[in-house]
Structures are given as C-alpha cells and as structure tokens.
C-alpha cells in the first residue's frame, strides 16, 4: 500500500510570513499533484509535477518534486489570508486516475 505523509498537519502564521509544506513517501510515483480545498468544496488542482527534480512556480507558490519522485514540497512566499485552506498532495502510480492522497496540511494565515 502506498502512503503519503504530509507535514505539518496544522500551520497558523501571520500574513507576510513564508512557509513550506512537505509530502513524503517510501514509494515512487509517476506524478504528484497538489490541491487546495476550502470548507464545503472539493479539492482544486494547483499543479502537477512529473519529472524528478522538477520545480514549478505559480505566483507566490513554488512546487518541487524530489529527484527520486518519492517526495515533494510546496513553498509559499509572503502568505496572505486568501491562502488559508487545506493543502493536499496526491500521488499517481501510473494506473489510470487512482490517486493516493496525503492527510493534508491545514493552513491558516492571520491578517
């Protein structure tokens, strides 16, 4: 069974601070996706990383896929209250659309 562990589980920071969320596994994934989920809504895809060592930027968000394709990180620069939400990483093992999700990191950014 493939498992994805996210850390930290909870994060409460002030507006303007930087933060990093980690997603780790002992298994290799063909790709890794990051989602953001708000209360009462389904997850919304932020980015997909496919190549080991790949780095993608989405405005103030930087995503990195580990060289061995077993881990990933999400770095947010100068966090804003609008970044508040549940951040989920999900790995795809190459067998269709079945995703293995991490437990999530609940982020709160205080003004």
């Amino acid at each position, binding site marked *: *069974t493939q498992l*994805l562990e*996210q850390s930290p589980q909870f994060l409460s920071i002030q507006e303007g601070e930087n933060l990093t969320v980690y997603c780790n596994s002992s298994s290799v994934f*063909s*790709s890794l*996706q990051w989602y953001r989920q708000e209360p*009462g*809504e*389904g*997850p*919304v*895809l932020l980015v*997909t990383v*496919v190549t080991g060592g790949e780095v993608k930027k989405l405005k103030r968000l930087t995503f990195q896929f580990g060289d061995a394709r077993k881990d990933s990180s999400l770095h947010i620069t100068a966090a804003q209250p609008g970044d508040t939400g549940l951040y*989920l990483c*999900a790995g*795809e093992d*190459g*067998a*269709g*659309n*079945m*995703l*293995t*999700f*991490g*437990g*999530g990191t609940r982020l709160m950014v205080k003004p």
Partner: protein
Amino acid sequence: DAGVTQSPTHLIKTRGQHVTLRCSPISGHKSVSWYQQVLGQGPQFIFQYYEKEERGRGNFPDRFSARQFPNYSSELNVNALLLGDSALYLCASSLEDSNNEKLFFGSGTQLSVL
C-alpha cells in the same frame, strides 16, 4: 459550462440503511472517480469508472458499489450503513482514463450516519 455536480449535497441516514449518491461529470468527460473523505483526513479512493466499466477499486468492503451510465453520469451505493461511513463523498471527472489527466472534483455529498 457546469462543473461536476453531485446530489444531494447533504444527507442524514441511520445505521443499517442504504444510500445512493449521484454524480454528473463535466460535459464530454468519460471517466468518473469516487473518493471518501473522513473529517480531518485526505480523500481515499473508492472506485473509478471509464466508458461504463470499472477500472479501479480501492480498499472498501462489498457494501460499496457503483455504476456508470451511458451518459457518463455515475451512482455510488452504500448498503448496511455504519457510523464510520459518515464522510464527505467526492466525485471527480476527467476527459479520459490516462496518466496525468486533470481531475475536476465536485463539491461532494456530506453523509451523516446516526
């Protein structure tokens, strides 16, 4: 265009009852997946259907079943409900059944089992 729509949005059942959840994918999407998200956890894969055929099944008991219709909509059925089945049930659709397909999630059905 409408996104993935799920019905009902909320549902309250008692132990032992049966429930049917419905999902309409984005127009043109042929693949539908179901996930269970227990409070405080990440979603867990239940089923994937593509062109009316089951393509994947997660580690869930036989009380859980699903099907996909010719119009690509889908139903998830759960029999003999247990308290532990209380969760947000998410449906996701994608164009095809291939790697790195972008999944679009609905807002889910919040099921409470009393």
